[in-house]
């Protein structure tokens, strides 16, 4: 199995995350949107990943297995991942807030590998 690589994960809002949120946190659309990882197409090609392939993301706090999707050309720089806010992104956050009340919730390092 290929070795895990370090990426920077950006959890954030999307239009679809916001609209499906109103349909309900258990709605198919919301669950799908918040558990689909967007990646730079070059990174995907280098790691032999296709749209829909499942990847494992790991931090010191936890890990999730979710499908990946190529971001539109030019949208995401190489080495950066985007995941709409939701259960999956929260599972990767640390509990420590470094005296601020806010865990590091954006731009944190994650290990990524293809899930077998």
């Amino acid at each position: 199995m290929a070795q895990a690589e370090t990426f920077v994960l950006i959890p954030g809002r999307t239009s679809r995350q916001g609209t499906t949120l109103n349909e309900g946190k258990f709605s198919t659309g919301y669950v799908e949107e918040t558990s689909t990882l967007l990646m730079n197409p070059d990174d995907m090609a280098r790691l032999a990943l296709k749209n829909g392939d499942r990847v494992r993301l790991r931090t010191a706090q936890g890990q999730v297995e979710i499908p990946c999707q190529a971001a539109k050309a030019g949208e995401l720089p190489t080495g950066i991942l985007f995941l709409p806010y939701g259960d999956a992104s929260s599972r990767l956050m640390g509990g420590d807030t470094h005296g601020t009340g806010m865990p590091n919730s954006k731009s944190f390092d994650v290990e990524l590998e293809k899930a077998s």
Partner: protein
Amino acid sequence: MAELKIVENATCTFCGCVCDDMELTVEDHKITKAKNACVLGKAWFLNHHVEERPVATIEGKPATLEEAVERAAQILASARYPIVYGLSDTTCEAQRVAVAIADRIGGCVDTTTSVCHGPSGMAFQGVGEVTCSLGEVKNRADLVIFWGSNPAESHPRHWGRYSTMPKGLFVPNGRKDRTVVLVDVRKSKSAPAADIFLLIKPRKDFEALWALRALVKGVKLDASIADETGIPLEQLEDLAQRMKTCKFGMLFFGMGLSMTRGKHLNVEAALVLARDLNQYTRFYAKPMRGHGNVTGADNVVSWQTGYPFGVSLHRGYPRFNPGEFTTADTLARGEADAALIVASDPMSNFSQPAREHLARIPYVALDPKETPTVRGAAVAFTTATYGINTGGTVYRMDDVPIPLRAAFESPYPTDEEVLKKVEKRIRELTV
């Protein structure tokens, strides 16, 4: 035939823009059209119809309102370290009662601010805020910068209603009279609408903002700043020059600053940059607030306790300490032994250690919708949706209070009504 009603000048409470020019078409107990609403507002109005759920549950089983109030009051009154959390998606009137409950039970009161712009609140206290209303931005701003924010997807009407598109008193040609700059770690959906897009390296916001401070003051910088921040020196120099020479500059910052390592220091850098620029022109900085009444939560908790979030009332007087009394911490450290969660979903949004502890303690949840937090609650109340089923007051992201207008009645009580009942019973129990 269904009864048809038009509600004019209704207010959307989905995001911090709090647009108050909605025209809602209501058929029976359902909104079928939301004229003027953005894509998020439409989803908000069209999906908040009356759902068939029990008014309350205790341990997941249907209960009467009175039974649930009694159980909720018992849980909160008997706790040794209770916390009150959420509050950003309810009215100021309900927020006020929630703070009173925290005071009565000697608990912590904290809002979702602590996990969105809480660090910005700390920065305001640290260095101050040069601030203005969105009305001033609309009428005066000729340079508008968005940093770490993606308004096209998070606040879709912000540009059209307040910041970049509208024609104003001193910007009569609207968008043509403005320069719009976006700074972000990715080329988001907002980028195509900006005149200038600067791609910054992740976790380098503080460095880039500090470099801009130096450039504004005329300090020469080495070209290696590009290696550090990802932004070429000439682009930073160009932006610094635009900032100094604009007539009215505005820096809107998003959670790209407050949620990224550095947090309040990133925001402080943005705020002092805006302050510095007032030596040359008029310049302001404001956070892009997310939830519909998160700004109201800051205001109400400040009126009541003197501090905006992360407040402990355990000793009978308010103490403010982010990192100690904020909910992400009191849960992750396993300190809280009961909770009152109002209009919020920490079971989805908090870190795993915090969620695991919340699952271990008895808590009371109020929400119009079923969420993971509602499902795990010892006592859950189904409440009316603010701004759709209730009147009341909310605060727009620029601290301007906006009244709400109900579109149709809900069979469920409001957050304020439930909280008042719980507070009354707690008073009886704690005499």
